[in-house]
Structures are given as C-alpha cells and as structure tokens.
C-alpha cells in the first residue's frame, strides 16, 4: 500500500498542514499517517468511498475531532489541546455541514449575526449589514426574516454558507455540502461555491460532485480506508488514475452519471 506524499507547497506559506496524522476510534485505526498540505488560495477536493476517513480528516482541521498522533497546523498555528489556539483557528476556519445545522429557533438574519456579535464583538447594526451583504451574495436576501424550517434544503445550505462567511474566514471547509439535497437544488449550492472559489478563498471540500471538482479544484485527493492513496490535478486523477483502488472508485461513481 503505497502512500503518495501530498505536500506540494512549503509549510511556512501553507494554509493547512497535516503531517502524519493518525486517529483511532477505540481499536479502529481510522486515519493512517495522513499527510496533506493546502496552500493559500488553493482549492482541494477530497474524495473516496464511505468510511475512507475523508470527513474525519477535515473535521480534525477545526478540531471537531481530535487526532492522537501527528501534527496539524492551520494558518501558522498548531492544533493542540490549547483552547486559545483553538479559538484563533476556529475564527479563521469556516465550516459547512452536510445537514446544514442552522439554528431553528433563530431567524436567518439572527443565524448569520450570532457569531459576529458574540465572537468578533461586532455592533448589531454592522453585523446585520454584513449579513445582508452575504445573503445577497448567495441570492436570497428576501428570506432574512424567515425561519430555517420555512426554507427549502438548497436555500438552507446557501444560508449555511453565508453564515460561515460572515465570520470572514481565511479557510472554508465543506463536508459533503450537497449530499443531503434534492437533485434540483444541488446546482444552486454548487454555483455559490464556484463563485466563492473565484474570489480566491482557500477551500477544502469533501464531495462526490466530480463536475465541480473538474471546474474548480486545483488538486483532488483520493482517500481510502484511512489513508491518502493518490493525489494530483483533476485531469491527472480522473483521466490517468494510477492505482487500482482509484480506478474502481471512479468507475463506481461515474457509472451513475
């Protein structure tokens, strides 16, 4: 089982560095010597079969999961148990979840302004202006005073993206953002993500949407059974797959298209 070294930029300039990260759930070794470097402004798509550890990997980046061995350095700060370092990192890293996780008891506007007011100590009026500008960017400003459960899935996910953007993060993590959506709503969310990529945001995206990967990603990383198997540009990966495992995976997901 060869491991491809996925480092492609110098550590000092990199936005995210994962160095031989290992994680166990009990006795199960779910991340095995995962190494990955993401440069500033780079867009990385992580793909792989279910159970390959791709979600676990990006959840380790903002410490929603804890790694037991190896180093993770985000925006120059190393991730340890230190809460101050964690606060700094979480302010600069935004995350979009598969199940949106909007706060159902708050309006859309309140969802967006909560963190800027509480964490960045912004005055309310300024936070609301910021929120409205992002709502306009994701093209649903008229929903500002509605509640999450009144919106469709695609609208909710766009709000979730806007909510993460309101913290003005340097890095955006996406954990299968379109997997829970009905097919006709996937495009509207992907359009927003493409627009975001065009502004130069550093993005790490776990997704099965290969069309998106082709359009936007600088690099695609393929993980299987807890380790990075192959990585390269989208063209290299999709047209010139090297390992059998990647070939099998591609044939399975592309069969459906």
């Amino acid at each position: 089982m060869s491991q491809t070294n996925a480092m492609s930029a110098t550590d000092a300039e990199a936005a995210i560095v994962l160095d031989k990260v290992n994680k166990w759930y009990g006795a199960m070794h779910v991340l095995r010597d995962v190494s990955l470097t993401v440069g500033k402004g780079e867009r990385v798509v992580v793909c792989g079969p279910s159970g390959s550890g791709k979600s676990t990997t990006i959840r380790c980046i903002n410490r929603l999961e804890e790694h037991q061995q190896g180093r993770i350095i985000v925006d120059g700060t190393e991730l340890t148990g230190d809460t101050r370092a964690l606060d700094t990192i979480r302010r600069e890293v935004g995350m979009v979840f598969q199940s949106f996780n909007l706060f159902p008891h708050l309006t859309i506007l309140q969802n967006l302004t909560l963190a800027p007011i509480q964490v960045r100590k912004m005055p309310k009026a300024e936070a609301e202006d910021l929120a409205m500008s992002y709502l306009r960017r994701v093209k649903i400003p008229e929903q500002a005073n509605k509640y999450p459960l009144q919106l469709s899935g695609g609208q909710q996910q766009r709000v979730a993206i806007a909510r993460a953007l309101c913290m003005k993060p340097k890095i955006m993590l996406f954990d299968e953002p379109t997997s829970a959506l009905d097919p006709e709503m996937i495009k509207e969310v992907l359009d927003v993500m493409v627009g975001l990529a065009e502004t130069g945001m550093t993005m790490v995206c776990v997704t099965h949407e290969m069309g998106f990967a082709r359009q936007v990603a600088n690099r695609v990383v393929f993980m299987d059974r807890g380790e990075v198997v192959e990585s390269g540009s989208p063209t290299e990966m999709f047209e010139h797959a090297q390992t059998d495992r990647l070939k099998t995976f591609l044939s399975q997901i592309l069969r459906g298209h």
Partner: protein
Amino acid sequence: MSTTSEVALATAPLPARERPPAGVVGPVAWGRHNLFGSIGSSVVTIVLGVLIFYFFWRFLSWGLIHAVWSVPVAANPLETAIPCRQVQGVGACWAVIGDKWRFILFGRYPYDMQWRPGLCVLLFIGLYVISAMRRFWRKELLYIWIATLVVIAVLMWGGVLGMEYVAQDQWGGLPITLILSTFGLAFAFPLAVLVALGRRSTQLPAVKFLCVGYVELIRGVPLISLLFMASVMFPLFMPEGLNPDKLLRAQVAIILFAGAYLAEVIRGGLQALPKGQYEAADALGLSYGQKTAKIILPQALRLVIPPLVNTFMGFFQDTSLVLIIGILDLLTAGKTAMADPTWTGFSTEIYIVLAVIYFVFCYAMSSYSRGLERQFRRAHNR
C-alpha cells in the same frame, strides 16, 4: 465497498506497527479518559468512590455479616425475636422474612391451599412472558389471555374440581397486586381503544366531547380519590341489596383509571400513524369498522407497545394505593406483618424485601420496553 479481501483484512491480526498506542486504548486509557479526564472529574471520582465503598461496607456489614438469618422456635412466641433484638441496629434480622414470607406473599389465604395463589402468580408471570415474545403477537394471544385469566379466577375462588371455595376477602398479597393490575389492564384495554377512537372522531362531536371529558377528569384527579369514590360512593349507586365486594369496587376504580391513561397512549399511536394509511384504506372501499380493525389498530397498537408497557408498570406500582382503602395487597400485607408485636422494629427488613419484589417486576418491564424501543428504532432507520 466491502469485498472478501477487506473482510479478510479486518479479521487478520493487526501488525504491531498498527496497534493503537497504549495511551489510546486499554483499561488504563479508559480509566484516564472516563474517570480522571479532568481535575473536576478526578475529584468527583474520588469522592464518589469513597462514598460508595463506605456505604457498601456498611450495608454488607449490616445485611450480611452481622445479620441473623433464622431464630430457634421459642416457647413464648413473644420471645421469638430475642436473638434479633440483640443485634438490632448492627445486624439485619432476616428471620422476620423467614417467619412472615407466606403472609406477605399470600395474605390470609388458607395455609394448606396456598399452592393455588402460588400457581396463579406463576401463571401471571408466564402470561407476561408469552405476551412479550414477538412470535406470539397474533390473534391467538387474545384467547391465551382469556383462558389464563379464567383459569386464575377458578384457582383463586375454587369451589369446583375438588378445590375448596375461598372467598375474596381472604385473598391477599402478591396475587392481589397481580390481579388488580392485570385484570385492570385486560378490561381497560377495550374501553381505552373505544375512547381513543372516539376522541379522534371528527364526525361525532358529542362522542368526542364525552371522551375528552372522561379522560381529562380521570387524569386530573389522583388515583386515591377514585379509590375513595369506589369505597364510599359506589355502594350509594347500587340498588338495595346489591352490595358489591370491596375488591370488585377497587377493581372497577382501577379499570376506569387505567382506561383513561391507556386511551391517551393509544391515541398517540393513532396520531403517529401516517395519514396515507387511513386514505389507502378508504380508497379501497373499507368501512369504518373494517378499516379500524384490520388496518389502523394493528399498526397503531404495535407502535405504542413500549409506552404501553411503561404504563402497565405504573399500574402495577399504583395498585399499592389500595393500602389506603384496606385491601390486602403486597404492600399492605407487608405493613400488616410489620405490626405483629413479636417483630416490631424490624420494618426496614420487610420494606427492603417488598422493594426488591417490586423492583424485580418493574425492572424486567422497563428493560423489556427499552429493548423493544431500540429494536423499533433500528428497524425504522434502516
């Protein structure tokens, strides 16, 4: 993407390099994480640990080491308990149980015929066990219930098949608790189904009003007031000469009480059933009776078996309230046993035994309903 090679990989022993570091897995790591994960956690562990050892040691010392298990027969009955009194406060007197267990379990039932209520208790337990097993969830279960309850009634009363007749004022103890709760459930169930259906009726507002009134009235008052009603008011409702026995009156009160609570549980099931089921049945042309009996009720009842079991557990405990109107159930029998002048002062031992008996029954029921809920949820999420 699981293939046979993956399965082989998963079952092969991990190479040494891949085994998780000792700080992650193993009893030491578990202890560190779960017991001493933080300073606060460590303090809690130590404090609780000390308290647990202390109380455990005290209980062991009182309940086992210094306890008196049996006393020799004394010439003067009032002196029987002397060996116990010598260790009172230091050791438990389990001899009181040895002396009184038959009274606690069977009340004043004639001594040599106590095999009959004993058999009834076993029949009740058997009935519960069979009803709990899924393979018996068919219509035949209804016949099994009817048959078993009839057999139990015959055994308790006697008068036929060579068994001597024993009037119900001599019954007592555990059989009364089981009878009141089980017959209560059995008769309340059809009533509850009707009330639940009536309460959901949109076409018959008068019926709905009556059902809502019944349920809210019963659920708003304590069971004790219903038992009082049974004990002092029911005789006033009866024409001259008709004097129903106290046990029967209490049973009727419990049936009325159980009916209201069961009705709410069943109504929950009816509401949880998707509307599509009702509509499909209508589309097929089924009448109200056919639709309800064949499509709606079987599904709705299945949905609410866990809360039904929990509600029955509540009734089982609530039968102890008949202490207050003077019916000799398990708790009352225990309390009466405590009042025996020979054994005064040893009520703690008797309370512990009563608590254990109730706990055994109720814990079985609550574990069963929890296990069932887990099964239902897993099947649902598939």
